[in-house]
């Protein structure tokens, strides 16, 4: 059979193809995807000759999970439609959450403003103009109490996009739960807590990478012992991709970060099977349809293999890569913004065909400003149309067996693994980041991508081809965009609240608690690979937030002891 196909293919190439190519050459000499993987004219059984069904694909819910993490996938339960949002102060966000819960939503997603994410209180000089702008401002437990007032934390799952000061915000969430009388074993949700990627993308770092890795590990360790239903980390490729990485780079760097977190936890004398089942991932999904689907399938298979081979995990859940996906913000255009609805649809479909556990769809006007209500609704409806009308959710991993997709999945896995081995050779992810290797790789990809668009080697509809008459394509036309986005009174209100809190709380207790953090930081000198002999800081941080020490105050102590990260910029 194989020989016959080979022979017939040759026959076809010589008798049919050759003539056609002479008469009508193809559109391009060379076809490739964003990851620079060459795309062949035709894929046949020859291209998946090496594929071993049981070894490489297997059954959904079984190792290596290529076909999905659950046996029935969306036939059992659809993915979670989780839209990231949040702005203003705690009171405003609380109203919004209650509204969403009333509408039947069971998952909340908290966006924090930049001062909170970088560990500054709302009255810090650097916070000027930023308070409550891209998310909610949280200075102390008091704000967190307001944020979740009347929200039963044992009955919602909360996703918090917080990284460098994650330990502090999680401690506040725990404190609110305790005040509501809720047992910690009932808390469910996710903290992003992926500090390493902040140095290579996204940029909300505070401390140098090594102490950051310690804080991340503190949260992971604490959760593995006290929060059985919490996903303490969401290892994120999304921002890496948005910063300009290719799909293969996104895949490789994300999994390499994951490996670094596993190594760090192992140094605390924990077994990977004790914590790895709670690891979760977060990927971007861009326009190249098959490349993205292949990426997700390759991600599952590669992670499963790495966990099994490198850490000898036994529990299948430790090998299972569960992920959230978000459509690619950087693929949206400000020109002809309605075209973005089509892009988001394609991307969302790729995420679903790639087997995502939850999905955020971007709004058409996000290249212009924070999205309008209308646009957010279209984005959510897009997911619902895919879920309920397209039929793609009726069978598990419907594209498996496609010669093209399987061959691509294989190639993506191989290329990502090559990158991971290169990072190993550099001394692991921490060293690769410190050497600037990852940052340079991403920067180069971003530049090449931009140049290709400008040379029209890559077509962006409405931007470098098929532009409308300028009179009709003026970007913001017909779109209501909030001026400046957020009420500037929020900053004043937040500052007044903070001042009042500092007068009313027991400042002696605060001082003592802050001092306890300081003492807990250095029982032994911090050294490379030294996370194992470090005290977990969660208990002292819990004590400090409980007496209303602020995010800024706690981070100041940590900044003093750990130092601050300064990016060495090279362009």
């Amino acid at each position, binding site marked *: 059979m194989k020989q016959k196909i080979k022979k017939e293919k040759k026959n076809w190439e010589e008798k049919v193809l050759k003539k056609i190519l002479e008469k009508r050459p193809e559109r391009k000499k060379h076809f490739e995807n964003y990851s620079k993987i060459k795309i062949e004219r035709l894929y046949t059984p020859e291209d998946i000759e090496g594929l071993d069904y049981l070894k490489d694909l297997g059954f959904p819910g079984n190792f290596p999970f290529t076909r999905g993490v659950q046996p029935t996938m969306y036939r059992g339960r659809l993915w979670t439609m989780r839209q990231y949002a949040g702005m203003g102060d705690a009171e405003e966000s609380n109203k919004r959450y209650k509204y969403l819960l009333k509408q039947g939503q069971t998952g909340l997603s908290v966006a924090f403003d930049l001062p909170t994410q970088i560990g500054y209180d709302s009255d810090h000089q650097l916070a*000027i103009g930023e308070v409550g702008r891209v998310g909610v401002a949280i200075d102390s437990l008091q704000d967190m109490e307001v944020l979740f007032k009347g929200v039963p934390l044992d009955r919602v799952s909360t996703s918090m996009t917080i990284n460098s000061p994650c330990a502090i915000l999680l401690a506040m969430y725990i404190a609110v739960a305790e005040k509501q009388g809720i047992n910690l074993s009932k808390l469910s949700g996710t903290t992003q807590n992926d500090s390493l990627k902040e140095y290579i993308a996204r940029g909300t770092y505070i401390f140098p990478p090594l102490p950051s890795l310690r804080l991340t590990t503190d949260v992971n360790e604490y959760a593995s012992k006290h929060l059985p239903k919490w996903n303490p980390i969401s290892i994120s490729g999304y921002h890496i991709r948005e910063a300009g990485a290719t799909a293969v780079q996104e895949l490789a760097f994300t999994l390499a970060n994951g490996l670094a977190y596993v190594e760090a936890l192992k140094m605390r004398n924990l077994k990977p099977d004790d914590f790895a089942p709670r690891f979760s991932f977060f990927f971007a999904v861009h326009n190249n349809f098959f490349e993205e689907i292949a990426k997700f399938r390759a991600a599952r298979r590669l992670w499963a293999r790495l966990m099994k081979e490198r850490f000898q995990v036994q529990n299948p859940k430790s090998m299972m890569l569960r992920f959230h996906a978000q459509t690619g913000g950087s693929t949206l*255009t400000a020109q002809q913004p309605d075209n973005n609805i089509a892009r988001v649809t394609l991307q969302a479909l790729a995420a679903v065909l790639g087997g995502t556990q939850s999905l955020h769809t971007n709004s058409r006007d996000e290249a212009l400003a924070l999205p309008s209500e209308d646009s957010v609704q279209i984005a959510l409806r897009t997911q619902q149309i895919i879920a309920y009308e397209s039929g793609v959710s009726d069978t598990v991993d419907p594209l498996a067996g496609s010669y093209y997709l399987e061959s691509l999945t294989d190639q993506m896995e191989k290329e990502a693994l090559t990158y991971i081995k290169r990072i190993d050779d550099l001394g692991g992810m921490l060293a690769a980041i410190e050497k600037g290797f990852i940052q340079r790789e991403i920067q180069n990809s971003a530049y090449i991508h931009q140049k290709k668009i*400008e040379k029209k080697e890559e077509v962006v509809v409405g931007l470098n081809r098929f532009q409308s008459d300028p009179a009709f394509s003026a970007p913001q036309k017909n779109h209501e*965009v909030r001026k400046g986005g957020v009420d*500037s009174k929020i900053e004043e209100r937040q500052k007044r609240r903070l001042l009042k809190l500092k007068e009313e709380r027991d400042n002696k207790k605060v001082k003592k608690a802050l001092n306890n953090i300081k003492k807990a930081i250095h029982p032994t000198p911090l050294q490379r690979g030294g996370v194992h002999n470090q005290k977990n800081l969660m208990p002292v941080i819990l004590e400090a937030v409980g007496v209303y020490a602020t995010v800024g105050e706690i981070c100041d102590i940590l900044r003093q002891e750990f130092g601050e990260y300064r*990016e060495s910029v090279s*362009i």
Partner: protein
Amino acid sequence: MRKKIRVLIAKPGLDGHDRGAKVVAKALRDAGMEVIYTGIRQTTEQIVNTAIQEDVDCLGLSILSGAHVKLFPEIVELLKKRGGEKILIFAGGIVPSEDIPELESIGISKIFGPGTSTQEIIDFIKTQIGADRKRR
């Protein structure tokens, strides 16, 4: 008169979205300009100090958090105070169209939205600085 155009690319505010700033910095350098890039999270004070000390011809500001409303006017004011009023200021990022007239009226010469080609920015700078130098 010096030959090369000197540019400072700066990121005021706290957002870490530096893809655009870095791509523009690299493109301007490849176009023969001398480019200094500040890195993320610069205070208005730091940006203005660098611009003055480095004696730049133009200053490119990149911001995506929405804090331009507050920070851009501050930078323009500070530059004026320190004798940098001749520096050509342009900006990029996510700036809603409603904010643009006001920012242009205070002295931001041009705001480049998403999708702008680097060539457009290069041409803009060369034209503006060229005209300015002829006048001097």
